[in-house]
Each structure stands twice: as C-alpha cells, then as structure tokens.
C-alpha cells in the first residue's frame, strides 16, 4: 500500500469518526450516508482538490459543491479533516446559531460553496461556475457531490446537456449510488439504470467504481482530472451506507438510519478497534 493510500485511509477513518461524533451530538443525522461517502471525501479533501485551509475563498481553489445538503454531516467532517473548520466546532452541529446547520448552506459555513438541500440544483449551478471560470481563464475545477436520488430531478439532465454542449472539461460530477432515497431503494422509486450509458449518451466521460475501494476512488479522481478530451466528467460511485460499522451496514436500509443512544459510542468503538487492527496488520506486514 502506498503512503498516499495509507494517509487517505487514515483520513477516511477520521472523517467517519467526526461524523459519528456530530451524530451523537444531535442523537440523529444522515450517518449512513456519511459513512458511505467518507472514502470519496477523504480523496477529495486529502488529495484531489486544490485548496487553502486558512483561505477558503482563495480564487484558485477547486470548487466543491455539496448538492445533497443533507450530507452536511459528512461534509463538515471532511472540512474538519481538511483544516477548514476546527474540530471543536463539531460540538455545535445542528444547534442554534451554529455554523454547522443540519442541511448545508453557503452563508453559514466556510468552505461551503452552495446552499444544497433542494435537490438537483448543484449540477446546474456548477455549469454556471465552470463557464464563469473558463471566461475568467481560471484553471480551477468544479466538483459536484450529489446522490442517486437526485437523478430523479429534471434539472440534473438539463445541466447534463448544458455541460456537454459547452464542453465543460473543468467539471467533475460525483454521484453517490447507495440506492436509498426517502421512499425506498432508488431503483424502485424511479429506476435510473443503465446509468453509465445514460451519462455517456448525454456526452459525458463516465467511470463507475466501488466508492468504498479507496485505491479505485483515488484512481478515478485522477482519471477525471487528467482526461484530455474536452467533455465533462462523471464518476458513479457505488457505496455502502453505514460503511465501516457492520451493525449499521446491516441495519434495515433506509434513507434515515435509526441509531439508538448507546449505539453512537458502540459505533465509535468498532471504528477505532478496526482501525487499530488494520494498523497492526500493516505493521506486521511491514
């Protein structure tokens, strides 16, 4: 395992930990999604994105749009890991006057590029930002983080056409396919397959990878960035909700996973134990 991969694994572990601690603060939260999306966020904020932690509005930064606002718990964890907000602030998650509201909003949180939550808005905003960056001759990239449920929204496909039409090679869309939305499995609510073919037909470069296979995630981000073709890029990540905490992975799958009060500490303990075990294995192998 490369040093980079080791480093990103550790970051993913810490992102999961921060998210669980925020979940415990409120006794609830979209923790299943946070655990599932942690590896993608670790690669984004640990490697792929250009940003300056002390200067979140730095003009040269890559823009990262959290379209699915309810993933805020995961995203704040990534911002803490990335050094953009302080770890101590996670205690305020979802409380009155906190900079970390339950659903992500641009005006509240440093490093939050958009107010998400009304689903299907991130990608069309990103089209405008990518066009704007191009016009300003700014080489930064725009990343959009969205979920499979959002694919139901027509605006996503308006934006998909627009991005391809304008050949937005500075646009990377990241789709979390955990196959869960409010009323059940996404494939049952409004079938979206064959998803890779759809995006390809819309004129996008498409990759589909296991979003919890960290080296695969890392490679996909690299491919998206390095592609020479003048077209927008999408990475479809199949993820497992609750990833890293087996009893949550196995819990009845739902948009909003139920977690009982003692279970937050149990989940943290499981995460810590498996991380220690992984490190010991690594040590033994080394």
């Amino acid at each position, binding site marked *: 395992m490369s040093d980079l991969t080791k480093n990103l694994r550790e970051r993913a572990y810490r992102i999961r930990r921060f998210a669980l601690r925020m979940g415990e603060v409120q006794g609830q939260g979209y923790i299943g999604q946070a655990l599932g999306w942690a590896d993608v966020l670790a690669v984004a904020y640990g490697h792929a994105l250009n940003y300056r932690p002390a200067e979140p509005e730095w003009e040269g930064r890559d823009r990262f749009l959290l379209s699915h606002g309810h993933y805020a718990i995961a995203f704040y964890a990534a911002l803490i890991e990335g050094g953009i907000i302080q770890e101590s602030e996670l205690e305020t998650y979802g409380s009155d006057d906190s900079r970390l509201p339950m659903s992500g*909003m*641009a*005006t509240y949180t440093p490093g939050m*590029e*958009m*107010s998400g*939550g*009304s689903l*299907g*808005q991130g990608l*069309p*905003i*990103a*089209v*405008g*930002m*990518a*066009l*704007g*960056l191009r*016009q*300003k001759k*700014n080489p930064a990239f725009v990343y959009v983080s969205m979920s499979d449920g959002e694919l139901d929204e*027509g*605006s996503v496909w*308006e*934006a998909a*056409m*627009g991005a391809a*039409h*304008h050949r937005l090679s500075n646009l990377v869309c990241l789709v979390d396919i955990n196959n869960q939305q409010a009323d059940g499995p996404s494939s049952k609510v409004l079938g979206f397959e064959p998803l890779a073919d759809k995006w390809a037909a819309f004129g996008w470069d498409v990759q589909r990878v296991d979003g919890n296979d960290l080296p695969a995630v890392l490679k996909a981000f690299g491919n998206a960035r390095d592609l020479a073709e003048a077209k927008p890029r999408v990475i479809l990540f199949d993820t497992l909700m609750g990833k890293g905490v087996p009893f949550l992975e196995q819990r009845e799958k739902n948009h909003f996973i139920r977690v009982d009060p003692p279970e937050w500490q149990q989940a943290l303990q499981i995460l810590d134990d498996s991380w220690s075990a992984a490190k010991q294995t690594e040590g033994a192998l080394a």
Partner: protein
Amino acid sequence: MNTVVAEKKKPRLTTSAMIASIASEGQRVKAAPFGKALVELGAQRPEVVGMTADLAKYTDLHLFAQAYPERFHQMGMAEQLLLAAAGGMAKEGLVPFATTYAVFGTRRAYDFIHQVIAEENLNVKMCFALPGLTTGYGPSHQATEDIAMMRGIPGLTIVDPCDALDIEQAVPQIAAHKGPVYMRLLRGNVPLVLDEYDYKFELGKARMLRDGNDVLVISSGFMTMRALEVAQDLAADNVGVAVLHCPTIKPLDEAAIVEAVRYKHRLVVVAENHSVIGGLGESVASALLRHRVQPAGFELAGLPDAFLDAGALPTLHERYGISREALANRIRKWLG
C-alpha cells in the same frame, strides 16, 4: 379553380393574436432599448454577461450576443439550468443578465430563483419578457401573477418599467445594485413616453409625473403610460388626475405613496399590468393601512383573478379594462 385567387383576396385579420405591440398607432417608439442599453453597459463593465434559455432574439439579448459573443451563454430551453447557472456565474463574480419569458422564468424555475439566487443574495439580473398581458397567446405565455410570486422572495428587488426610457436607465442601475433583481421586460418596439415628463429612473423611487385634484393613479409598467393618456382624456371632463409612477415594486417607495395619498382627498386607483392578487395594488393597500392613511376611495385597475383569453392584444386590453378607453371608463364609473 379560383381557390388560390379567393385566398389572396381574403382581408387581412385585424384581430390577430400576432399583434403583440403595446404601442398605439403613430406612437413614438424605440427599438430594443434593453438590448442596446446592455451593449452599452457591457462596454464599461467586462464582468457583465448575457444568458438566455433559447429566447435571445425575443428578449433583445441578441444585440448583446452579437457585440460580445464570448460573454454570451446559451443555456437552451432549460429555465432551471438558466437560473441556476446564472447563480453559478454570479458566484464567480460575474454579473449575469438572464433572459427568458416571465412565465417560464418565474413559474418553471421558481425554486432556483428562490434557493440558488435569492437565498445567497447573488448578483443575478433576471430580465423576463412578456409581463402581464402583453401577448395574446393565452395563459401559457401571459405572466399575470409573476409579481405576486416574486414579491414573496426575500431580498429580491422588482422593477416594472413603463417605457424605453425607463428600461435604458434601469439597466445600469440594476447592474450597479448588489443583489438579485427581477425586471419585467418590454421588448421590440417599446413606446417612449416619459421623456416628456422631465423624468429620470431612480431604483427604489416612485415619481409623481403629474398632479391633479380628483384622482390619484398609482401605477407601474406600461399602465403608467395608460394612466397618463387617461389623465389627458379626463382633463377634458374637468377631472384632475395625478399619476404616481412606481417602477420599483419591491422595495416599494412607501414614503412617496403615503405622502401622495395623505394630504389630498382623492380617489386612489392602482393601475397595473398584473393580476389584482398580490401585485402593486395589494402592496399599496397594505402600505396605506399600516401608515393609517385612508384615501377618499380605493380601486384596483389590474387584471382579473382569472385565466385570461387568447386573442389580439387591443381586444384583450379592452376586455380586461387596461386599454386607454377602458381605464378611463372604469375611473369615470368609480367617480360616480
């Protein structure tokens, strides 16, 4: 054998829905005041960009596109994309002027205006054509409730210009304003009226265009032009009509309205090219009540709360009481 000849002899229809001008015959007009003003502004402000949803030609934005092709962005017939992308542009420090028809912009993309643009106070200028009853195509194209919808959005500035002068002066001012603006756009050959009234557009301000002792018409959009015409007609009957033009609907110049109503015992008529529900009329009524000002009478000369007919504009303006003659008759009736 004579079918072709017979068809040629058919008289041209004079009540066609294709008649889409609000200018009366022989009236002075200016062509494409919005497009020309935006081209001029673009020369001074390189951050101004034009965006549209397949309606550049029909919103006079094509002039900007021709002048600055690299600053014009075609979004296709996709209003949600148009307005969200305009928000994205504004996030990058550009000042997008986004155009479409008012029905499509407000009704189809409302949440995108609300959440993407207004909630973050982004600097997007939405200039939507065919406001109110300015097309005979029927409700699919008639934006008779756009002000009601847009007024509900916090922090959004709303402008309803009367004529070509209003539009060309409003363009640089709404660009200079920091924050989202919705302007109801008159396109094509737009009447020129206000140059005769020593008038200047000032964002956020109402302006008394003429005084009169019997009736005060408070108006916006092209209904100010109608009110001025009606004032002339009623002067012949010795009825004095004052006209207070309120091109900024939000924030409303309540001070000017209260001032105009408070000191003279007049019938107040609010004339607007919009449904009587949720437009200028109800805004004025609310302002007067809150300021405890009671006019001699209060009437709404707006469009009815109904899905309006298709047809020729002159017919429809007559039918719904916003033509020169119909407005004059309504006021005469209210005066009793």
